[in-house]
C-alpha cells in the first residue's frame, strides 16, 4: 500500500512540475483555453468526486454552489452590471467562498437525510433553483450577466497574458488535490468513508451521520466555490447561463468521464472535455443535421453515454483495469504468493463504483 501511495504522490508531483513548465512548451492559446479551463473545471468536478467517492453522495448541485460563489464575487467587486459595490477583489474572493460554504451547509442539512438517487434529484433541483433565482433577480445578475469583472492585481489581464491566471489555477488545483487527499485520511475523512459504505452501522456506532454528511457537503461547497471564483477569473464575466442545467451536466460529464471514484479523474476528465470541445469542431464529420461542428453536445453526450455504459470508473477506471490485469498476470506467475493486487489506496478504488452496483437506497 505504501508503495502505491508513494507512486501516486510522485506521479502527482511530476504532473504538477510538468504543468508548471507548460507555458514554456505550449502556445498561449493552448495554455489559456485548454489547460486553464481544464484546471478550474477540474476543481468543480473534484468537488463532485470528493462527495461521491468519499461520502457516497453524487451531487448535481455543485454548479449551483459555484454559481453562488461566482455571482457573489462578481457583485462585490467593481463590474459592469450587478450590485454597485467595489470591494477589494481579494476580500471578495474570501466572502464569495464563504457564501458558497454557507449555502452548501444549508443544502447539505436539507439533503443529507436522503441517499443515493434521491440525493441526486434533490441536489439537481437545488441547482436549477439557483439558476432560476439568478435569472429572475436581475439586480444581482444584470440583464446580460455581470461583465468586465475586476480581478485581483496578481492575475492582471488574462486576455493579454494568460500565464498568471494559469499559475493561480494550477496552485488552487494542487492545493485542493492535496487538501482532499489529506482530509480523507483524517478521522473525519475515515468516518465519511465509513458512512459511505455502511451508514446504518456508523449510526449504530454513535456517529452523527447527518452532521458528517452536512459537513462533507460544506467541504464540497468550499471546493465548488473556489471553482466558481476561478471560472469568473477565467471568463471575466458570469451570467445565469453559466450556471444552468447544461453546465451542471457538463461538470457531471467531466467527473464521470474522468472517473467518479478517483480524485485525479476530475482533472483528466476536464482535460479530455476541453480537448474534445476545442478540436472536435474541426474534425467532426458532417452528417446531415445529425452530426457536425455545431453538434458538440451530441458528441459529448455520446462520449458520456459510452463511458457510462462501458466503464463506470471512467477513463481512470479503464487505466486501472488495464494495470490490474497486467499486474494480475505477473502475480499469478509468482504462484499467487501475494493476493494483494489491489490498486489505489482507498476502498472506493478497489471496489469501483460501489454506488453503481448497489440497487436502490439501503434500508
Amino acid at each position: 500500500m505504501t508503495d502505491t501511495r508513494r507512486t501516486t504522490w510522485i506521479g502527482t508531483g511530476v504532473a504538477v512540475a510538468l504543468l508548471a513548465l507548460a507555458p514554456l512548451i505550449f502556445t498561449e492559446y493552448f495554455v489559456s483555453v485548454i489547460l486553464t479551463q481544464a484546471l478550474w473545471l477540474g476543481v468543480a468536478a473534484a468537488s463532485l468526486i470528493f462527495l461521491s467517492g468519499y461520502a457516497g453522495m453524487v451531487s448535481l448541485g455543485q454548479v449551483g454552489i459555484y454559481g453562488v460563489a461566482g455571482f457573489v464575487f462578481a457583485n462585490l467587486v467593481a463590474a459592469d452590471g450587478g450590485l454597485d459595490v467595489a470591494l477589494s477583489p481579494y476580500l471578495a474572493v474570501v466572502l464569495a467562498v464563504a457564501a458558497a460554504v454557507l449555502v452548501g451547509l444549508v443544502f447539505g442539512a436539507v439533503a443529507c437525510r436522503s441517499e443515493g438517487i434521491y440525493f441526486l434529484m434533490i441536489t439537481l433541483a437545488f441547482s436549477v433553483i439557483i439558476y432560476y433565482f439568478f435569472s429572475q433577480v436581475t439586480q444581482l445578475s444584470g440583464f446580460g450577466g455581470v461583465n468586465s469583472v475586476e480581478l485581483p492585481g496578481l492575475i492582471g489581464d488574462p486576455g493579454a497574458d494568460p500565464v498568471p491566471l494559469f499559475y493561480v489555477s494550477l496552485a488552487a488545483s494542487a492545493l485542493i488535490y492535496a487538501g482532499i487527499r489529506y482530509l480523507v485520511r483524517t478521522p473525519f475523512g475515515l468516518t465519511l468513508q465509513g458512512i459511505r459504505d455502511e451508514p446504518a452501522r456508523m449510526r449504530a456506532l454513535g456517529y452523527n451521520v447527518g452532521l458528517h454528511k452536512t459537513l462533507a457537503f460544506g467541504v464540497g461547497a468550499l471546493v465548488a466555490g473556489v471553482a466558481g471564483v476561478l471560472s469568473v477569473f477565467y471568463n471575466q464575466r458570469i451570467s445565469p447561463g453559466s450556471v444552468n442545467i447544461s453546465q451542471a451536466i457538463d461538470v457531471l460529464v467531466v467527473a464521470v468521464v474522468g472517473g467518479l471514484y478517483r480524485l485525479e479523474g476530475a482533472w483528466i476528465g476536464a482535460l479530455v472535455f476541453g480537448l474534445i470541445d476545442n478540436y472536435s469542431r474541426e474534425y467532426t464529420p458532417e452528417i446531415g443535421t445529425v452530426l457536425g461542428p455545431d453538434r458538440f453536445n451530441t458528441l459529448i453526450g455520446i462520449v458520456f453515454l459510452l463511458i457510462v455504459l462501458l466503464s463506470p470508473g471512467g477513463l481512470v477506471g479503464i487505466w486501472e483495469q488495464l494495470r490490474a490485469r497486467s499486474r494480475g498476470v505477473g502475480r499469478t506467475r509468482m504462484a499467487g504468493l501475494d493476493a494483494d493486487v489491489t490498486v489505489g489506496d482507498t476502498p472506493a478504488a478497489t471496489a469501483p463504483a460501489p454506488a453503481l452496483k448497489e440497487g436502490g437506497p439501503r434500508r
Partner: protein
Amino acid sequence: MGRGQLGDWAPRAALVAVGVIVVGWLAIKAADDIGTFVTVTLNGVTLAALFFVVASGFTLIFGLMRVVNMAHGSFYLLGGWIAFTIQDKAFREQPEGLGFDLTPDSDLQFSLAGWVVPLILACLAIAVVGLLLQQLLLRWNQGQDLRQALITIAVSVIAADQMLAHFGGVTQEIQPPSGWPTSVNLGVEGTRFGFFRLVVVLGAAIVIGLLLYVVIRRTKFGMIVRAGVDDRQMVSALGINVQLVFAGAFIIGALLAGFGGVLGGTMIALQPGEDTAFLLNSLIVVIIGGMGSLGGAAIGALALGLVDAYGDVYLQFGSQDLTNYSILLTFALLVAVLAVRPLGLFGRPA
C-alpha cells in the same frame, strides 16, 4: 429517527405557523380583488394539472423500476415537437378563395382532427421512443439506479441537442381546434378564463388520474405493478413476466410525458429549455409527493402549481415588489416538505 420529541415537534409547529400566515395573506388578497384571485388560483390549478400529467409518468416509472428517468423532460418536449410538426405539415388548411397564403399564424384554421390526430401520433411515437430507451439502454442495467440515471442524462443531452438541430430554437405553439371557444365566463365579476387550460388540460389531468387509479387499483396489470413496487423479486419468482410489465410501465410513462408535451405545447409553448424545465417540475413534484406515489404526484403538482401562481402575483408587500424572488418559495416548499418527511409526503422506503 431517534430524535427527541422536541426535535420532531419544532419543525412541524413552524410549518403550521407559516401555513397560517400564508393562508391569512392569501385571504386578505382575495378579499381585495376576488376576480384576480380566482384567475390566479385557476392558473395555478391548471398548471398543476399539466405538471401532474407529466409527473405521473415519471413517478410510475420510478415506482416500479427505480429508474429515475432524467430523459422524461426530453420525452415531453419531443412529443410536443412531433405534434407541432404533424399539425404544421398535414393539417394547415389553406384559406378558401385566393391561392396564396397571407393569413398570419393566429388566423389559421384547424379542425378538431387537426389537433387530435397529431396528439395521438405524438403519444404513440413517444411510447415507442420510451420502449426503445428502456429495452436498448436500461434493461441490461437493471438494479443499478445511479448508472441508469446517468444513462438517461446522457440521452437527454443528446436529445436536447438533436431537437435544437431539427426543430430550431424558435418558440412555437400547437394550435387548438378553431371550433373551440377561446375562453369561458366564470360568473365571478365577469372574469373569463382560457377554455383550453380550464376544460381540456384540467379535464385531461382528471381523466388520466382516474384512469391510472382504476388501472392500478382494479386491474391485473395494476395489481402486478403494485406488487412490483413492493417486491420485484417476489413477483418474478411467482412466475410473472416482470420484463413485460416493466416495458408496459415504461411505455405508459413515456406516453404520458408525450401527452403532456402536446398539452403544454398548446397551453404554453414549445422551445428549447422546456425539457429541463419540465424535468425539474417533475422532480420537484415527486420529491414533494414521494417517489412512486400517484396521489403524492397529484398533491405535489397542486402544491407546486399554486406556489408558482401565487408567488408570481402576490409576492408584493406595499411598494416592495418581490415577485422575481418567487423561485425561493418553491425552494422553501421543497425544504419544508423534506424537513418533515425526507421521502416526500407519501414516499415509502424502497
